[in-house]
């Protein structure tokens, strides 16, 4: 038990959360890849206004905020049912457009406080947004336009959300690592030495493993399954051309953006950890 009387956060639990999210990331991207680029969804609206994508994300986030707010009121009125477990939920829902959301934003329930209070200030969503629309979509989707803009931006939001969740779990990663070896991290934090912190947080072997696993998932979930395949078919014999999305695109996504951005979150979190 930690000082707050809650459960201890473990590296295993955090790694578990990251692995589960991998599947969700792969699913979300495969679903988006079902539609072509659909560029008009990202063009400025009438009179140079917001794109459909931006409109949708703002509205969806406002709805989620209303839902959380509603739930906190509702839950407190019900005097939180005893069977709701108060184990640690490793989940970070960081909005892309925080400024217009109803405030204050109550949590859906009172979770054990495992993160430093300043954790809520850490966000890399601007970078994720830019990365997704400018770099990832051109690689992920074919040129073309099927007119299904609303469905497209809904799928975009799903991708953005799940990637943002994955990347901001970096806060929990950093907390666990800090608790494990505060003597290693504290001097670097006090010196505000981002580079050395980044070095300390990086484990190339683990990253390679993640990359390979993501590629394997992309190949497995992206294949065209039919009844003629026999049991003897091994992984890798499904030609990449039979996959809905080039698996190397997805492993590249993890390598170039998801993992580095997660580490950025870890560093940003740690820099505030002693405040």
């Amino acid at each position, binding site marked *: 038990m930690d000082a707050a009387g809650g459960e201890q956060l473990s590296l295993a639990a955090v790694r578990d959360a990251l692995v589960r999210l991998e599947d969700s990331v792969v699913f979300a991207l495969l679903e988006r890849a079902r539609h072509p680029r659909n560029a008009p969804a990202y063009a400025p609206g009438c009179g140079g206004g917001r794109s459909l994508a931006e409109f949708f994300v703002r509205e969806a986030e406002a709805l989620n905020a209303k839902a959380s707010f509603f739930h906190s009121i509702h839950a407190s009125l019900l005097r939180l049912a005893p069977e709701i477990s108060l184990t640690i*939920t490793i989940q970070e829902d960081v909005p892309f457009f925080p400024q217009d959301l109803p405030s204050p934003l109550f949590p859906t329930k009172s979770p054990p406080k495992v993160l430093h209070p300043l954790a809520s200030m850490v966000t890399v969503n601007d970078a994720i947004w830019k990365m997704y629309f400018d770099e990832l979509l051109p690689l992920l989707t074919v040129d073309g336009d099927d007119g299904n*803009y609303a469905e497209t931006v809904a799928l975009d939001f799903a991708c953005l959300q799940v990637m943002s969740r994955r990347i901001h779990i970096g806060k929990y990663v950093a907390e666990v690592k800090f608790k494990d070896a505060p003597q290693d991290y504290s001097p670097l934090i006090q010196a505000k030495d981002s580079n050395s912190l980044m070095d300390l947080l990086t484990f190339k072997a683990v990253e390679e493993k993640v990359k390979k696993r993501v590629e394997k998932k992309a190949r*497995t*979930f992206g294949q065209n399954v039919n009844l003629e395949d026999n*049991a003897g078919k091994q992984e890798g014999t499904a030609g990449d051309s039979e996959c809905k999305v080039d698996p190397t695109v997805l492993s590249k996504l993890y390598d170039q953006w998801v993992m580095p951005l997660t580490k950025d979150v870890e560093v940003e979190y740690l820099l505030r950890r002693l405040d």
Partner: protein
Amino acid sequence: MAARAIYTVLVCAAALLLALASPSAGLSLDTVREFLTREEDTIVFSLIERARYPLNRPAYDPIHLGDGDGAGPGRRLNASFAELFIRESEAVQSKAGRYQSLQEIPFFAYRVPFTLAPPFNFTRELYPAAAFVNLNDAIWSMYFNELLPVLANNGDDGNYAVTVDSDLACLQVLSRRINYGRYVAEVKFRGDQQTYTSLIKAKDRDALMKLLTSEAQEDVVKRRVEKKAIVFGQSITSDGPIETSVSNSSQANFKVDPSVVYKLYDQWVIPLTKQVEVEYLLHRLD
């Protein structure tokens, strides 16, 4: 005289061309099958995502505001959190233009005076008088009363918004797949207008259902979607093997029970789709 004959021939030729040029060159038995096959993946993915969360029953109970124990009478809304959230979500999607193409039909009706979506020229493939046919009420009921209890584990983690969000994804794809029966029926009708016309005029539901049913085809679909549940639902580790078949699978490790997915298609998806097909056809000559 000759000029008049030529004129007549030209007019007839033009009329013939117009009649032959179908409003949608894109709709065929192949494209329909392709669409339905790809939908299977989406359905399996969305069920896997929903199965990540426990049942979270309070999200589906009618909402009580206030507890009526002396502070005043409790007020009960006739809607659950799920219904409210889904209504609001659909309203946003509606504003974004989601229901314009008629391929998707919302669960709740909206008055949307305008849409923010960029304009797009959708080919109208469905017969207008029959395009409204849908089984959304049955799908809603089936999903919450029959499917969810066997899909999700008992429990409550309090994360109702993400849970209902994933419910909506399931509902949307199931609705789209089942109501696609309209397109299936349209293609079949065009392929054999004479036979279908006489059955439709006789309002012979049973005969229509029989004509639309291919048990061999349905068996292939059910087994394939079960296999997809196994392949997509397996836990993939860096060094472990990949499941590729039904026979050597151990169900304990799967994120969604493949037999639930098989049953879903067997008892609901396929029968409901055929119901849509029959209803659509019964309006095809209106």
